[in-house]
């Protein structure tokens, strides 16, 4: 129930892309034609799966550590914090990550892009946020790759992130991009975000302070999930 102890989660209009964005051809037959109906948040929506702990091993945060030798490409660190829009850290929460290899090829049957697979890189990781909402992964910078959306269409280099947050309305799947990518202008997935400032929030920034000299560059990517309607009591467990 949306009482003072369990306030609902704010709807923020204009942040996400629309369902129908015709330049992204895949939306044309999958976007519903009717607008969604407003659903008041009940206990089903004020709760959500808290399944991180027990599903992640420390090694899952290093996508470069699962082959017989190092994967090819540019080793990078990606790190940041996960907060809600009121600035509260999203603690102990599962993040799932997947991406193409350095050549722009996914280790997936459907991907027929004629670029080499890397036997030392599956492109899959998992990590838990810590008690401050911080996370850190080690991976390879993914390559851009062609797709069939329009003639000579190329996706900017990106890493997929899936987050649960602490409740159903905080669930988010998004993509992290890299600064200065020359492919942004022609990518309908990136440009489906209505507000240019929203697009910028998906672009990580080079973070030399977290780089490991002679080993790996670092990129910072902070993620903000939905905040709450009103300030809840400090201790949600004080029933």
């Amino acid at each position, binding site marked *: 129930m*949306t009482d003072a102890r369990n306030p*609902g989660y704010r709807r*923020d209009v204009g942040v*996400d*892309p*629309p*369902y129908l*964005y015709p330049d*992204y051809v*895949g*939306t*044309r*037959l*999958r*976007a*519903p*034609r009717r607008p*969604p*109906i*407003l*659903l*008041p948040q*009940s*206990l*089903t*929506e*004020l*709760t*959500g*799966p*808290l*399944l991180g702990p027990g599903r992640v091993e420390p090694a899952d945060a290093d996508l470069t550590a699962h082959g017989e030798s190092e994967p090819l490409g540019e080793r990078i660190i990606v790190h940041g914090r996960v*907060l809600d829009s*009121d600035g509260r850290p999203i603690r102990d929460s599962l993040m799932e990550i*997947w991406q193409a290899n350095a050549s722009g090829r*996914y280790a*997936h049957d*459907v991907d027929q892009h004629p670029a080499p697979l890397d036997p030392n890189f*599956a*492109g*899959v990781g998992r990590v838990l946020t810590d008690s401050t909402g911080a996370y850190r992964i080690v991976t390879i910078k993914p390559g851009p790759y062609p797709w069939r959306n329009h003639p000579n269409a190329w996706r900017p280099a990106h890493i*997929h992130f*899936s987050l649960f947050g602490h*409740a*159903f309305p905080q*669930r*988010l*799947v998004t*993509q992290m991009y890299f600064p200065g990518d020359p492919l942004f202008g022609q990518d309908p997935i990136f440009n*489906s*975000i209505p507000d240019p400032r929203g697009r910028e*929030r*998906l672009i990580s920034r080079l973070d030399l302070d977290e780089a490991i000299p002679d080993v790996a560059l670092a990129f910072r990517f*902070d*993620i*903000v*999930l939905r905040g709450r309607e009103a300030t809840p009591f400090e201790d*949600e*467990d004080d*029933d």
Partner: protein
Amino acid sequence: MTLPRTPSQTVGPYLALGLPWPDGPFVVADGTPGAIWIRGRLIDGAGDPLPDALVETWQADDEGRFAHPAARRAGPTTFRGFGRCPTDADGRYAILTIKPAPVPGADGRLQAPHIDVTIFARGLLKQLVTRLYFSDEPAANAADPALLSIDDRALRATLLAERSADGYRFDVHLQGDRETVFFDV
């Protein structure tokens, strides 16, 4: 302080790399008394199946409890409540679970038993959210606030799962004449 939220992006066609779990479809273990299979297909606006989608489910247990601090007053439970299944080449998914008990709505009155269903797929720039209700709960469904908020009565039927041999069938039509009702949560 209000921070601007991070926008959503599509899972793309390769979600099967990162998201399926071996135990994902099993909200309850095989052999659990009273377990039901929720089975269905995802269909696009051309009538074609979605072979590259992910279905997630979230629900209360059979006493209306959730394993979550916001639901403490309903009592503790170890019920996972969460299911996750990628679709196959025919757009089919299957989740093994139990039927949830009614839980209170936003106004405090009991809702009909329901399961929140989330869909991720290539071509969806943001997840779709709908609700599965049980067609063999006509009295509870007739008083459910979310179902009653759908003005067109014929559309309410898109949220009713039908009995099947081993549980319930729940198809989701993303677009078209049989388009499922989706919710803004």
